[in-house]
């Protein structure tokens, strides 16, 4: 339509007044028609524009929405929530318990919760604790009551289990040999008819509620000393109670919510879960004045020893000056219970997929834990490293706060450790005294970040090397002649008796009698004299005032040291060169201190206490302090016992010990 040229026409009309235009249009049909046409065209145009805009807008919006749902703000991981079925709506659990010479198992509602058919393992009484409301397994233990004292542990454990819990017992192989009357009475009080009469190689299963009904019991007597009783299988039903009945009614606080979560999952932690007057899980120890280690991260290295971890964290959180926010617990493996313990105390925990085996596994776990600690706290210059089987002294942080500046300023220091290898009940005396030693004791120590990042981390032993991290750290290539600061009286106590290189005998011999500081706020004396050169002055002063002991006497005898208090004595032993520890080892042995390898020495000098007197031992002529020996004195030489084969093997075990 060529004649539709609306714009010039519209312009032309605009110039006239509306009225005139109207008049004109009435008169002029053609003009009216033109106007109508123009209007219509304008209308159409506007419609088209609005249409196009609308289409564009909806398209854009649709595109955006599509994009939005496509990704961008969506998590790429599909965390599909698995709908949690309540354990069962039904109120009855079917329980099967099997006891035999070589195999035990427990099945709850068709799910095997315990199965043990390993040879030469799992002998004794297996105990399982179930939650009476949910049927969840809360604890699983085995007590080898064929061996002594295990029954006592079982009694302890059973006493800690809350009333109302479901207890299941089954014997594998033999469980009666060292099952004493006390333990039998406890089992009887739980409702067992058979327990008091359990005897050699009997098979036995029992299920009951603590302080309540008995669900079933089966027993097979051993016909003769050389044979076992027939396998027994107990099948029974357990009626579940309501959740409310199974829980305590603590006041609803944040702390109690944590407690509740913990107590409904695990058993065997005693009063922390008791309904009346439960033991606190928050300790609020006094803060330290001028605490220099408040911002130092604390790495707790843990395995699967949740009871140990519980004890350890309690003592750590009770130490004055502790800062719970800086604590991270590193758990070697995906174990639930240690994590439950960590959460009970409101701390943060990190689990570590195990790499490698045995010592190397521990070693890799240490590396990952240390690296993670410095990643999580990038500002930190130090990290405190603790293990799950240590008690922490109440003045642990006070001790570190007073000494940590030395580690920062003195390059000749390797670490500060809370542990004195030679600090036994009879050889440590002064909580305010510190030493410099050439060995690295571990067991609660402070690591400098620069040491770790620049030296240790890049060449940390790789998984295929089955090395102990602590032995590796003690090697001259790593230590490079640097020393550690230790207290005379240890600020940590090693209570673990189950461990990679640990057993009850070993613990009794070397760790039980270790002295542990319990005095709060000890003011350390003369910290500045621990610096490299000042320490030499200090030693020379000490040796200067020390009284030389009578070298004709036997140093192992008590009478070797006079019955005085607070004096300083010195003795000289033979030490041909730096690595000659023959006499020292014999002396350590007869003094009943650490003798499995050499610990606590500083330039051929050992410092300890005997009968409350400071007692110095100098190795002559290797030690630079040999010059203090009066010429009349002949250094004592003690010969190792002739039989050496057995002894040679021991240090290897011991060496690996302190992990």
């Amino acid at each position, binding site marked *: 339509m060529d004649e539709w040229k609306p714009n010039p026409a519209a312009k032309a009309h605009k110039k006239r007044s509306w009225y005139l235009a109207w008049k004109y249009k009435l008169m002029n049909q053609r003009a009216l028609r033109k106007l109508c046409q123009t209007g219509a065209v304008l209308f159409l145009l506007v419609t088209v524009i609005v249409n196009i805009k609308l289409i564009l*807008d909806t398209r854009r919006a649709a595109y955006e929405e599509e994009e939005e749902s496509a990704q961008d703000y969506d998590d790429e991981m599909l965390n599909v929530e698995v709908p949690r079925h309540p354990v069962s709506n039904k109120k009855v659990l079917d329980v099967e318990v099997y006891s035999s010479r070589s195999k035990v198992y427990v099945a709850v509602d068709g799910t095997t919760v315990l199965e043990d058919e390993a040879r030469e393992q799992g002998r004794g009484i297996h105990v399982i604790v179930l939650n009476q409301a949910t049927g969840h397994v809360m604890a699983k233990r085995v007590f080898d009551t064929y061996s002594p004292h295990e029954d006592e542990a079982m009694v302890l454990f059973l006493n800690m289990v809350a009333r109302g819990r479901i207890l299941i017992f089954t014997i594998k192989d033999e469980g009666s040999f060292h099952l004493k009357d006390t333990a039998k009475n406890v089992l009887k009080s739980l409702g067992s008819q058979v327990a008091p009469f359990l005897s050699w190689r009997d098979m036995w299963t029992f299920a009951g509620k603590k302080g309540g009904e008995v669900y079933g019991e089966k027993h097979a007597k051993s016909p003769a000393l050389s044979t076992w009783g027939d396998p027994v299988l107990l099948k029974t039903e357990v009626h579940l109670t309501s959740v409310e009945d199974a829980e305590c009614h603590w006041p609803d606080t944040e702390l109690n919510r944590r407690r509740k979560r913990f107590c409904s999952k695990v058993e065997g932690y005693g009063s922390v879960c008791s309904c009346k007057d439960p033991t606190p899980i928050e300790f609020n120890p006094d803060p330290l004045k001028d605490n220099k280690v408040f911002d130092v991260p604390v790495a707790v290295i843990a395995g699967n020893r949740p009871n140990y971890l519980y004890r350890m964290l309690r003592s750590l959180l009770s130490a004055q000056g502790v800062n719970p926010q800086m604590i991270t617990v590193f758990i070697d493996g995906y174990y639930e219970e240690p994590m439950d313990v960590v959460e009970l105390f409101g701390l943060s925990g990190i689990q570590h997929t195990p790499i490698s085996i045995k010592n190397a596994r521990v070693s890799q776990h240490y590396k990952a834990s240390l690296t993670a600690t410095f990643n999580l706290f990038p500002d930190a210059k130090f990290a405190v490293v603790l293990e799950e089987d240590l008690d922490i002294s109440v003045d642990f942080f006070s001790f570190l706060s007073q000494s940590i500046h030395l580690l920062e300023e003195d390059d000749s220091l390797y670490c500060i450790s809370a542990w004195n290898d030679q600090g036994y009940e009879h050889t440590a005396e002064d909580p305010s005294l510190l030493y410099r030693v050439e060995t690295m004791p571990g067991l609660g120590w402070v690591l400098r970040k620069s040491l770790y990042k620049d030296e240790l981390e890049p060449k940390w032993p790789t998984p295929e090397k089955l090395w102990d991290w602590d032995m590796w750290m003690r090697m001259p290539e790593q230590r490079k002649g640097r020393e550690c600061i230790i207290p005379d009286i240890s600020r940590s106590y090693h209570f673990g008796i189950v461990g990679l290189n640990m057993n009850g005998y070993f613990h009794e011999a070397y760790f039980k009698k270790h002295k542990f500081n319990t005095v709060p706020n000890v003011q350390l004396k003369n910290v500045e004299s621990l610096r490299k050169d000042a320490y030499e002055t200090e030693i020379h002063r000490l040796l200067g005032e020390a009284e030389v002991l009578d070298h004709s006497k036997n140093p192992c005898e008590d009478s070797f040291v006079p019955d005085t208090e607070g004096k300083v004595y010195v003795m000289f032993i033979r030490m041909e060169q730096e690595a000659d520890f023959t006499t020292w080892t014999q002396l350590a042995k007869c003094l009943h201190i650490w003798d499995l390898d050499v610990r606590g020495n500083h330039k051929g000098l050992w410092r300890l206490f005997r009968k409350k007197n400071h007692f110095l031992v100098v190795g002559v002529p290797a030690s630079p302090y040999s010059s203090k020996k009066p010429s009349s004195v002949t250094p004592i030489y003690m010969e190792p016992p002739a039989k050496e084969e057995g002894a040679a093997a021991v240090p290897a075990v011991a060496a690996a010990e302190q992990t």
Partner: protein
Amino acid sequence: MQKINKNVVLALLSLTSLVFLLFQLYYYKFYLSQKNGSVFSKVRGIQSGQDSTRWHVVRKFLGLISSHNIPVYLIDPLILGLVDKDIEQIRSSPDGPTPDCKYFCAPRDFTTFALVDKTWKHEVSLFRAAEKMGFQWLKIINKDPRLDGMDDLSGVEIPLHYIFKLASHAIHLVVFYERSGNYLWHGPLRLKQHMDRKFVPFRKLHFGRYPGAYEKPELLLVSIDDLKVQIPKNPSSFLEEMSHSRFLECRYREARAFFQLYPDDASLDAVEFRKKAKSLLHLAALTLNSLGVKFWLSSGTCLGWYRQCNVIPYSKDVDLGVFIRDYKADIIPAFQKAGLPLKHKFGKVEDSLELSFQGDEDVKLDIFFFYEEDDHIWNGGTQAKSGKKFKYLFPKFTLCWTEFIGLKVHVPCETLQYIEANYGPDWKVPLKTWDWKSSPSNVQYNGVWPVNEWDDVIQIY
């Protein structure tokens, strides 16, 4: 007849189009108001000049936060932009009353605050209190990147973002974490499946599309619109930092896979070289940062980061890239002062500039200068003995932050293209022999320096 018909047709057409138009307008309006109420609240806001809802929500939020002793600071780019204009006045009269609500009343869907993680204790009581005040809140958690590089640690997931919503306004609280390299990091905002996608218009949030890296800001307590709030001391530099804060995490998983295939060199030499390379890179970063010269990891160092999250132990040098527009004459003296003498200088500022500094023992620091063209970026190489010139072409790229051996450094955001340009599609396979003149897949012969210029463009010390 024909004319009448035409008129009728026209009238009919007009009528339908009118109806159509009205319908469309109505629908459009309806659609918009459904899609996003704010368009109209904006209109309303403009009409009334301000929107007190936002101010009230922010005030409530700040009250909540201060009663729990949580030190948040304002990082909302729109408000900081406004504040920046009046910064002198605000600084000089920190308590001065402002006549009208200038900053917190512009109607927006949300206001953004930041929180440095280590400054609070994750108390649950905060959320209880927030609920009591009427806030709805949403927590976005994800993996802890500080443990990401660690082989097999699984920590607890950490909170990255919080959103507190009251009435029509939301507070977006971004959680910043300190990381090795002395910087602050915030995570991306990713919704898990069950989360309420409509909780707030997530797409409009200023933080969260990508993770970001920032310097630790100095803060200033100011009183604006009668609200006491901490802001970055220098809002304009914060805004500038924000505009290119995108952070790339190293590809730890791929790096692990790489080491499965090609076990890491754990020899003493490798350990030593890495240690030297690390300290050289730290020194170089310190020097260039203090000059304000922006640089990125280039060549082998970039490949090491991308492929194995570490220095390639046999690479013998540290390579950095710098845009020629950032070149400063002070670079050479600054490095010399830092104990890194110039080893050689090839090319000139106008063409193919390349500097080499001698680090400790045999580790060398190479700085390549990059020239931007319309559709590509290139840097040059020079063969000392023949005066031959080479050109290495790269597709255009922008710069992102990353963390590399304890440093916050730049890398090309489009790292893969960058590396493929340089090393070809087989960059995943380690090569110990490498000829810089022929091995790179993006090398081009670029003529020869005129002999009379040699003294200038080939300087070897």
